[in-house]
């Protein structure tokens, strides 16, 4: 008998310790994320309103995917801001499995969360669950999701401001009536918004668009090199090329270098990441300007927006995060090599003025 019970006891012990171990790794992970990624929070001076005055507030973050440099930093910013606000943040990560995101959202609704943040997702998949959440009186804040529900707070990166910021630099550097090239693809919401700003700005400056090429694939950067190279063979007299997505910009940079035109043709991109900074500051890089948002600051700002909505102080239904122009000259003169250094050198990236109040300890400052 004892022989039979021993393994059972040992196994239940093993199972319990597995859970315990996992629990430990979670808490250390959370503190590490907060410590590494975010500068010490700007102290809150005001009195916390309800529900924050009554202790921890339960909020769920339901993500389509948390993988990749951008989304990891976004998540770290959100977690750090949640911690600073006294939010008990539960993160549901569907790992790009859309069916799981639907059940995750459903689970979040039943979890007793006061607010739910939905980060990306197919509208057809998540809209019914969002409606259910709103009906239950849960505050819903979406990031980069098209939603039809009027009670939902919509947040997104301001793509128009991103294009405008780069095009302002392009206008300064090329002047009026220049010959220009354009690398972009239709059919992606973010790129379409950047496209409409391009058309307006190009018209206003009297730029002559000599070519428009571009495609989006599994390896966009590499696959655009032959397209842009061919276009540059035909039109080697362009003064600048606008490629409003960093993968397109990378392909354009390679094409310009292949054609040995880096002294004549300037590349104006969009988005910013560690790899993009490396690319722009490399010797002989024709990529002279880009614009971007800091994913970590955006994640934090989305959580602050949620907090304001919970406290009944938001008073608007959409918040957009403006992009900031970043030039090659700026990066080189400050010796910036990565996002961390860029954040320090360019405070505007931190969105510290967006969705904040005196009672909010702001992690971005």
């Amino acid at each position: 008998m004892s022989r039979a019970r021993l393994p059972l006891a040992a196994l239940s012990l093993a199972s319990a310790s597995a859970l315990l171990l996992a629990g430990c790794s979670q808490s250390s992970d959370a503190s590490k994320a907060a410590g590494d990624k975010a500068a010490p929070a700007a102290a809150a001076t005001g009195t916390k309103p309800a529900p924050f005055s009554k202790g921890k507030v339960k909020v769920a973050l339901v993500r389509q995917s948390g993988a990749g440099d951008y989304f990891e930093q976004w998540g770290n910013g959100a977690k750090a801001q949640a911690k600073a606000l006294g939010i008990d943040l539960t993160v549901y990560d569907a790992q790009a499995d859309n069916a799981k995101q639907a059940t995750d959202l459903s689970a979040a609704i039943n979890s007793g969360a006061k607010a739910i943040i939905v980060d990306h997702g197919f509208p057809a998949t998540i809209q019914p669950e969002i409606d259910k959440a709103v009906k239950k009186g849960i505050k819903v804040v979406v990031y980069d999701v098209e939603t039809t529900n009027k009670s939902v707070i919509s947040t997104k990166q301001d793509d128009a401001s991103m294009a405008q910021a780069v095009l302002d630099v392009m206008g300064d550097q090329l002047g009026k009536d220049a010959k220009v090239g354009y690398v972009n693809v239709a059919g992606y919401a973010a790129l379409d918004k950047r496209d409409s700003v391009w058309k307006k700005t190009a018209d206003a400056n009297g730029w002559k668009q000599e070519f428009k090429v571009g495609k989006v694939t599994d390896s966009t950067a590499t696959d655009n090199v032959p397209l842009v190279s061919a276009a540059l063979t035909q039109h080697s007299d362009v003064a600048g090329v606008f490629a409003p997505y960093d993968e397109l910009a990378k392909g354009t940079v390679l094409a310009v270098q292949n054609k040995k035109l880096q002294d004549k043709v300037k590349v104006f991109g969009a988005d910013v990441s560690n790899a993009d900074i490396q690319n722009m500051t490399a010797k002989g890089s024709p990529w002279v300007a880009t614009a971007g948002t800091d994913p970590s600051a955006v994640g934090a700002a989305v959580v602050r927006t949620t907090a304001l909505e919970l406290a009944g102080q938001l008073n608007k239904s959409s918040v957009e995060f403006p992009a900031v122009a970043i030039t090659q000259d700026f990066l080189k003169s400050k010796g910036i090599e990565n996002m961390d250094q860029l954040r320090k050198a360019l405070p505007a990236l931190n969105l510290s003025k967006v969705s904040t109040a005196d009672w909010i300890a702001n992690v971005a400052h």
Partner: protein
Amino acid sequence: MTTTQSTEVPTKAALPPATSTGLRVQSAVIKYGFIFVTVTLFTYFALSEPSFRDSATLLDTLRYVSVAAILGLGVTLTMAVGGMDMSVGAVAGLGVTVAAKTMVTYNQVGVVAILAVVAAGALAGLLNALLIVVLKIPDMLATLGTMFVIQGTKLILVDGQSITPGMTQSDGTTAPGKFTDGFLRIDRGTVLGVPVSVLIFGALTVVAWVFLARTRWGRVLYAIGANPEASRLAGIRVGAYRALAYVLSGVLASIGGLILASRIGQGDVSAGTSQLLEAVAVALVGTSVLGRGRPNVWGTALGAVLIGIITTGLTIKGLPYYTQDVVEGAVLILALVFSFTLSKRRTA
């Protein structure tokens, strides 16, 4: 799936022999160990997390695992004949695409979509049967091959694009249809508060159990899995029964695809891929339930429920997915210890 019990007469294998008192206790551990782990975990989560006790959370958990469970039932059938079906995830994904194509591109009603999806599943099963039974390719390799072929076919059907209502099609026109409300009810609707997909999971579990454990056909499937040569000599048409198992697996996988399609609400080309490992895992872990050491329907269903409890419980506890995988794996290994390690010790 040949196990230590495979030498027993199949009809008797359902009842583990217990000859003496000592062995009876040990066989109780083997028999109920898995259920003990499930109940322990459930109690732990229920006591420590109030929101876990909520009936809505429990139904959500069942809804979440319903697809993997139904796919797992198909895998169980193929394991019963000594095979394995690696194509179930791809077939479910094909189901999502066929459903979207039928309703959105061809503007058909939900019933037509359901018939088309199930037909596609049966066809995929027939393809597996052809490769395994007629062309004699080993089951694992054959179904791995069809997995890739089906995934590729699915992408070709839609030019690699997810089908969404109102999308611009390759010929420049706008897609005329949408997912019908009736079709969306497969996963989003409820009957007496229970999600329809959970009811489908429950119904299919009962049907599969009756089929596999209570009919002659089911016993024949197990007999083939235990000893195909003896079955053949006993006059059983082994090839036909193995083909039947793969076709049924294809049909079950397509039903899982219907639920996925209804849950996602558009033709997501990546759907289904994540379901394969979970389906195989629940079928494998199911072999340890009730100490059977062989594929069985209740084991598969309970295995799916256990995975659901772990995933939901750990998420409510705030563990990120990458730590969940470790815990999930550890509990699965623990469950398998009951059926394999302890069973071996008993027979030794």
